[in-house]
């Protein structure tokens, strides 16, 4: 295609072209040295880095992430089902670094000095910032379930951070005898990706139906209801009759203790559950760095200004993604991506001393029930009385044709391709 010339540029900036052209040098000099450090290279952090550069290429953006590649939780359930491999859900930071000129530092943050505005890395290096964005994701509250710790998670995987745990759970499913019971035990809300345990149940059943048809999936829930429940239950009845059983939190209470040796779960209501494979998803909170930096409240999550995502605990630090408390938004990759863009826009606007326009936030949360059957929740949010409130939360219709469910499964894949392109500056 053609190169961008001056005339194209004027066309692009439209009516305000003259003032924009004049304003460019002022903008560049005003923010040339402005440094934003972002901790965490998931959907929140990567998107925020990308959009800061989109909004203003002059900002100096550093993304700190220990891993060289990011494995997404979205679509990790399709790996459990054998529909995709790990490579499909693994993304690197090459394009963010090479094309979008973001400094990518592969190291762990061990401390933050909020007074001196310095991030201290494991290798001893220090990064100074004008503004810090933290998108640390979730941590696990290991102490809450007796007998369940990091070691036990190698026997009863949580697979709630995608990667090795995903591979482990997949291998356990493959090794299981036909006729086995797979237990999925979701924690009490709030937790990362509220519909994902139920998508997981569906896609494990998808695999079992083909490979081990006498087997079952038992969801031992600590919640009394779940997202898109009627749609999931109708789908299970249709696709996997008799294969998936859900036990409500009103019967279970919550999981209090596990015995990894005997593969048993013990609930507060006095019930015992035994599985051939146990996927125990532990209770969650904001990840360690947020807790250690005193960004969290008594429940372990980070309260933020709902408009700017600036921490209510520390100045010049923004918290986005699963770790933050963002009004009615659930903890999902799509929500983190949305928050990241608005956070970036706020930082850029704040540097300029201009107001940010009124925003509308939209998310689409797809859940796959099989390769060709998906449902979705479309949510629209607005800022009202300084809180992000859901204006509408609309699920796929309860009655829909096979074609509609198929269409949504294709949209789910398109969504995944787009959001990873958006966050990691990938080419589709």
């Amino acid at each position, binding site marked *: *295609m053609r190169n961008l010339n001056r005339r194209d540029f004027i066309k692009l900036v439209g009516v305000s072209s003259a003032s924009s052209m004049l304003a460019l040098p002022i903008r560049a000099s005003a923010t040339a040295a402005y440094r934003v450090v972002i901790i965490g290279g998931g959907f929140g952090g990567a998107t925020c880095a990308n959009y800061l550069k989109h*909004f203003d290429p002059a900002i100096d953006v550093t993304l700190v992430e220990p891993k060289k590649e990011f494995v997404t939780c979205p679509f990790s359930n399709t790996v459990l089902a054998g529909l995709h491999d790990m490579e499909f859900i693994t993304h690197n930071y090459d394009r963010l670094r090479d094309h979008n000129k973001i400094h990518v530092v592969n190291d762990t943050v061990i401390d933050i000095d909020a007074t001196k505005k310095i991030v201290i890395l494991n290798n001893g290096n220090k990064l100074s910032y004008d503004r810090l964005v933290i998108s640390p994701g979730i941590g696990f509250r290991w102490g809450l379930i007796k007998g369940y710790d990091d070691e036990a998670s190698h026997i009863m995987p949580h697979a709630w951070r995608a990667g090795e745990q995903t591979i482990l759970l997949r291998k356990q499913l493959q090794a299981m005898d036909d006729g086995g019971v797979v237990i999925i035990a979701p924690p009490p809300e709030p937790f990362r990706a509220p519909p994902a345990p139920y998508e997981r149940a569906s896609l494990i059943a998808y695999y079992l139906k083909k490979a081990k048809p006498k087997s079952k999936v038992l969801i031992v829930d600590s919640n009394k209801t779940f997202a898109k429940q009627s749609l999931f239950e109708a789908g299970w009845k249709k696709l996997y009759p008799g294969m998936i059983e859900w036990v409500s939190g009103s019967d279970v209470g919550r999981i209090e203790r596990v015995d990894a040796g005997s593969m048993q779960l013990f609930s507060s209501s006095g019930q015992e559950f035994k599985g051939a494979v146990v996927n125990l998803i532990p209770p969650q909170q904001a990840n360690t760095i947020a807790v250690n930096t005193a960004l969290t409240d008594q429940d372990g999550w980070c309260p933020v200004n709902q408009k700017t995502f600036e921490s209510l605990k520390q100045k010049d630090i923004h918290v986005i993604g699963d770790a933050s408390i963002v009004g009615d938004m659930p903890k999902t990759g799509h929500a983190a991506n949305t928050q990241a863009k608005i956070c970036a*826009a706020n930082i850029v606007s704040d540097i300029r001393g201009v107001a940010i326009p009124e925003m509308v936030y939209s998310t689409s949360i797809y859940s796959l029930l099989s390769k060709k059957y998906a449902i*979705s929740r479309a949510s629209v949010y607005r800022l009202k009385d300084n809180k992000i409130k859901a204006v509408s939360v609309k699920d796929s219709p309860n009655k829909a044709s096979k074609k509609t469910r198929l269409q949504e499964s294709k949209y789910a894949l398109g969504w995944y391709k*787009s*959001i990873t392109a*958006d966050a990691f500056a990938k080419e589709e």
Partner: protein
Amino acid sequence: MIKMMKELFTIVGFVALLFSSSATAQGIDRGALLATMCVTCHGPGGQGSKRIPSIDNHSDHELAEYMHGFKEGTERATIMDRHASSYSDEEINLLAKYFYEAKQ
């Protein structure tokens, strides 16, 4: 493939330029900011993704007409009706104008 890549670079470049220049003169343009929500599904610059339709190849009038149709239920949709119903007419027009102008 190379042609597609080149096009993609150009689209990404256009969007980046528009964002940065509009951030300069009078703050970030509202249409550009609202559009950041659309590209999450519709791909960089709204180019489409797999079966998700592109939104960068319509006139502003056409795109607005689709969105108003989704909002009012006169245009068939799988998910866009559920999103469009919560956008004001003014916001729909801003988005349509943004995607049309970004492509010119």
